[in-house]
């Protein structure tokens, strides 16, 4: 098998790396690629085979990924699902789920915010370093920070509990595990943004006009990378909020995050109650995911 004409370039862009390097960086646009104009070309109307197959598969996959979401809502609202889908509607399950899980929701929100703060404190300087400096061990640092993707969450959790058994009751381990697990995504979004030549040119201009380092950071760099920063923030919050695999060994009985309670409900509870708790979870996560997708569409990773 031989590589096609564009292969080496693509190899650099999509070589083993974080999902989000690729994710948040839109396709490497070659100057000859007329995708923006393509849709208006009249000959596109009778679709060619490649496009037709692609569209059919995309529709099939979208049906698979989307259909469960309204179904969760339907079951959460049904008075008694076992008596069939038409037994009547009620908000009773949602109200019950809310009183049952609001404490856990609070725990998850607090953990997610704490994780985000730590991520930014650790990740922003590190992304700056990786994007703007060449130093011995740079590749190693880049590679090591992808390790949390390679090491399963359950193994990270087990390692933490074996290494620091006395810290478990404090809940510190769960936060540490979440930071490790979410940080690569933050680096993946911020590093290309901080390396963007446009931002760096603006910084030099500001510097020649006499702006000091703090002013440059606050008025040039941060606004310049705000799309990537917002995307990274949303990503870290939603990932931590839904994180279960790392937390499985690490949560404390008094500090159960929302996913742990959801899991209990999936194993033991009634379908309606589990669906109602899931609706509350989705109400937090899906809007953030949609906002993230909009940001992704708006050139996060390059801007």
């Amino acid at each position, binding site marked *: *098998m031989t*590589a*096609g*004409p*564009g*292969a080496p370039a*693509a190899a*650099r*862009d*999509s070589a*083993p790396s974080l*999902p989000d390097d690729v994710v948040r960086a839109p*396709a490497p646009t*070659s100057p*000859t690629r007329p995708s923006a104009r393509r849709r208006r070309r009249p000959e596109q109307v009778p679709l060619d*085979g*490649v496009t037709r197959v*692609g*569209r059919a*598969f*995309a529709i*099939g996959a*979208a049906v*698979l990924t989307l259909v*469960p979401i309204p179904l969760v809502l339907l*079951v959460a609202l049904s008075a008694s*699902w076992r008596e069939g889908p038409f037994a009547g509607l009620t908000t009773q399950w949602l109200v019950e789920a809310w009183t049952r899980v609001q404490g856990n929701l609070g725990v998850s929100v607090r953990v997610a915010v704490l994780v985000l703060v730590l991520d930014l404190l*650790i*990740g922003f*300087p*590190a992304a700056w*370093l990786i*994007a*703007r400096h060449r130093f011995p061990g740079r590749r190693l640092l880049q590679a090591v*920070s992808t390790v*949390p*993707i*390679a*090491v*399963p969450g359950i193994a990270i959790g*087990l*390692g933490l509990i074996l*290494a620091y058994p006395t810290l478990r009751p404090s809940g510190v381990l769960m936060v540490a595990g979440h930071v*490790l697990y979410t*940080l690569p995504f933050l680096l993946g979004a911020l590093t290309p943004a901080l390396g963007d*030549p446009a931002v760096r040119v603006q910084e030099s201009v500001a510097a020649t006009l006499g702006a000091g380092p703090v002013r440059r950071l606050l008025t040039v760099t941060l606004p310049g990378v705000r799309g990537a920063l917002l995307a990274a923030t949303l990503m870290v919050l939603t*990932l931590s909020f*839904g994180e279960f*695999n790392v937390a499985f060994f690490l949560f404390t009985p008094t500090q159960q995050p929302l*996913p742990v309670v959801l*899991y209990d409900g*999936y*194993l033991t509870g009634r379908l309606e109650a589990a*669906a109602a708790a*899931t609706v509350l979870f*989705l109400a937090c*996560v*899906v809007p953030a*995911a949609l906002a993230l*997708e909009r940001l992704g569409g708006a050139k996060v990773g390059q801007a």
Partner: protein
Amino acid sequence: MTSAGPRAGRRLPRAAALGAPLGALLLVVLVWPLVTMALRSVSAPDGGVHLGRYVEVLTSGRYAESLVFTAVLALASTVLALVICVPAGLYLERDRTRTGRGLAVAMTVPLSLPGIVIGFFIILTVGNTGVVPTLTEAVTGERMLQISYTWAGLLLGYLYFQIPRVVLVVRGAAGAVRPEAVDVARSLGASTATVYRRVVLPALRPAIASSAALALATAFGAFGTAATLSRGIRVVPLEVASAFTDAFQPELAATLSVLLAVLTTVILVGVGRLGEARVQGRPA
């Protein structure tokens, strides 16, 4: 790509300060726990070192079976996801209309959903009192597609979390497939299958390799989906959890975790490298 200034070499102290927090985190939260885990997995009761647990695990019927099962599940879900997502991702990068954007969002949103919620989606849709069996019973009198706790249900759950991961990598690399090349191939009379075989797949080979690596590693390590959906079918991450919590054998759990982590890392690096062009040297 990133670039360093000409004077970058002289700014080592500053670089060290910027990288120190990340370095410390990786040491404390990643390296030391992994080292501890590895040491526990080879610790003998008398305080010495032995590899007996690895031999035990690799020769025991139970763990060999769960390893094979995990591998089959990971491979099957990855292949299915590639078959669906290569054409779909290519189409999504070309179609900037409202339909295309909407489909892209639909295929991306599951990235934010944890494995347990995906498992619940499968239970809810095709489980014992799931929507599809209940509705088909109401309509035809027969419960259909009640598969959630079977092999097929587990595969469906894995496919669900693979789709967004694979499609994003493919979309990111779709620029490698030149529309002109596709048009030329078609004008020379190539069928759709030939266009895929001769134009699309070769150009996307790096993306296919790296998304396959990512998908396989994710599937091998997946815990939440399997924990929610599995009844009797034991994948390796579930064995880790049960060795620690049910049997309370931390050393056994550590052994299984080390094997699993080595496996996923080798897959992530090895399979991803398959797609890299030969001319590129090995990274330093």
